[in-house]
């Protein structure tokens, strides 16, 4: 392989020439204020959810939601803690499914995205149409369910939670566009000159400089898999609860509670007595959001800074 200087470590701005290319202080200040406001606008609701989850059910009933509840209580978390074995197992399931799904998704998306970005690829037209059609025309829930369970035999397996969501036209297009616009032809050409196969060019030349888009799509996949529960509801029977992912467990708990609250006059007292509802919902949100929000910084370092690919110029 030729000595291509591929710099993959992100260079922070304020380095070298970029120091002279910064915003005027006033503009920077205005922007900063704007973003602080935006950050507050988006963070406060989550804080609100957290506070509600710590409020007591009684004070919610009396005074509604408030940033300063009159009475705090850990009841909702205590209730979740009761089911900790059950929830613990589903937590591990979710982590496994998310990691496997994200990796698979990235492989599938990037390979096709790269293929479609090559201008001279013979089947480009065909493949583009092929990925666009499913964006609109879908067999629908019942047909997909039937095919996945009766033909592929995915019912009650982990694969049922990983495979169906492993790729998406939208992400392929994003990848394709990224490869087209920001990967200069020169890199590909120099690789080809040196007799590398497309596979090698892809993995060793293109991927390393495409970290922003990989991180972005990886982030999207991670969120999708982590938050997904509908697939679990469809494909997992109640006698296979060891396969349940976290979101599904929590949603089920919540649905049970809602159902009982809505039909309260038909239910006997014994069951209803100890269920917190409003605060419970918020506690569930916190349990779901926190791990994923904590994973965000992991992806974030690939967004910041610039990559110098200039060294490859002919």
């Amino acid at each position, binding site marked *: 392989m030729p000595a291509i200087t591929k710099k993959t470590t992100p260079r922070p701005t304020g380095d070298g020439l970029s120091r002279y290319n910064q915003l005027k202080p006033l503009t920077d200040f205005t922007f900063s204020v704007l973003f602080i406001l935006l950050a507050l606008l988006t963070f406060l609701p989550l804080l609100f959810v957290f506070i509600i989850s710590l409020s007591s059910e009684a004070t919610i009933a009396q005074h509604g939601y*408030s940033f300063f509840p009159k009475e705090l209580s850990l009841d909702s978390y205590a209730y979740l803690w009761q089911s900790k074995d059950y929830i613990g197992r589903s937590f591990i399931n979710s982590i496994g499914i998310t990691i496997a799904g994200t990796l698979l998704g990235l492989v599938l998306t990037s390979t*096709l995205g790269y293929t479609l970005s090559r*201008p001279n690829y013979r089947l480009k037209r065909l*493949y583009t149409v092929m990925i666009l059609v499913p964006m609109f025309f*879908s067999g629908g829930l019942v047909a997909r369910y039937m095919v996945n369970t009766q033909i592929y035999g995915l019912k009650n397996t982990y694969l049922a939670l990983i495979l169906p969501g492993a790729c998406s036209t939208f992400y392929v297009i994003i990848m394709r566009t990224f490869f087209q616009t920001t990967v200069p032809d020169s890199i590909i050409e120099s690789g080809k000159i040196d007799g590398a196969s497309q596979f090698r060019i892809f993995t060793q030349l293109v991927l390393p400089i495409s970290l922003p888009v990989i991180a972005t799509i990886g982030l999207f996949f991670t969120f999708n898999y982590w938050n997904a529960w509908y697939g679990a509801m469809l494909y997992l029977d109640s006698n296979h609860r060891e396969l349940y992912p976290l979101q599904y467990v929590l949603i089920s708990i919540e649905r049970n509670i809602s159902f009982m609250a809505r039909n309260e006059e038909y239910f006997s007292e014994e069951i209803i007595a100890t269920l917190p509802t409003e605060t419970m919902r918020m506690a569930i949100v916190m349990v779901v959001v926190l791990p994923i929000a904590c994973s965000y910084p992991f992806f974030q370092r690939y967004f910041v800074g610039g990559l110098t690919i200039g060294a490859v110029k002919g």
Partner: protein
Amino acid sequence: MAQIPIPQKPQVETTSPKGDASIKKKRRRFTWDDLELTLLSLPTVAWFIAFCYIPLFGIVFAFKNYKYKPGTGFIYSLFVHSKWVGLKNFKFLFRSPDIYNIFRNTIGYNLIFILIGVTLPVALAIMITQLRSRKLAKVCQTAVFLPHFLSWVVISYFVYAFLSTDKGLINNIIVATGGDRIMWYQNKSYWPFILVFINTWKTFGYSMVVYMATITGIDRSLYESAVIDGATKWQQCKGITLPMLRPIISIMFILNVGHIFSTDFGLFYQVPRDSNSLIDVTQTLDVYVHKALLQSNNYNYSSAVSLLQNTLGCILLIAANLVVKRIDPESGLF
């Protein structure tokens, strides 16, 4: 035709493919390159076939009165046993007295969302990459993503906390400053703004990330050369950043136009808490279908509506793509 869209890069050699003649030759033969690429993308293609194309037969649900026959297979029940009803499954839509409103709301809101979607997140993405304090940028990037996690049900709760007539925060502020309580959930004039605001709040972080990724992928040397040439920040933005973003923006635009008949159910049903007084401005196609099919789990009808939404959307997408290509031949979905 299928060229890499090469923006105006000052002082970078435009690496043109090796002459016209050889391109034509390459397209005729299935080259070794093509084979390698095909193999590379084979797993993905297999995935599409398995999970998107094989279930496609389900489209017939829209035209049939599906009934399962116990003891037989699904395919038999669908194709042989169920009756073909042509366009009958679409009838229920047009029996609604509000059908005009429904379509107006669906398309109207989506148009506004699209317009905002191609301007606001782009501007914010450009701005955030320019901030001096990288720490602030990082914190803000994390924060703007948070609304994405909250489900519409949860969002409807704290919108209620703000807008509740009796105990809502906003009414409390109004009363404290001497005004009258506003019955938010019974007054439809506020809701178009409320819904647009909430939807933007929830979704801008998501699109921003896509644009940010594209921006950080832009070759830094372009900017450096521009600075050497004496370009101001604004000129850099106009001359480098925006053109580099143009393909992705136009693609997001086209894709969203393709989905103009579908709306986010949670936004239009749960956030207004299904209040009747607001129906005129909050009922979209998906909400209407949900209400119509609450009592009877009629799968034929929901497939019919999906097919309608998707077909119309597809037509619009093709149209949008043509329009975009006319303006800028290098952008465009296909």
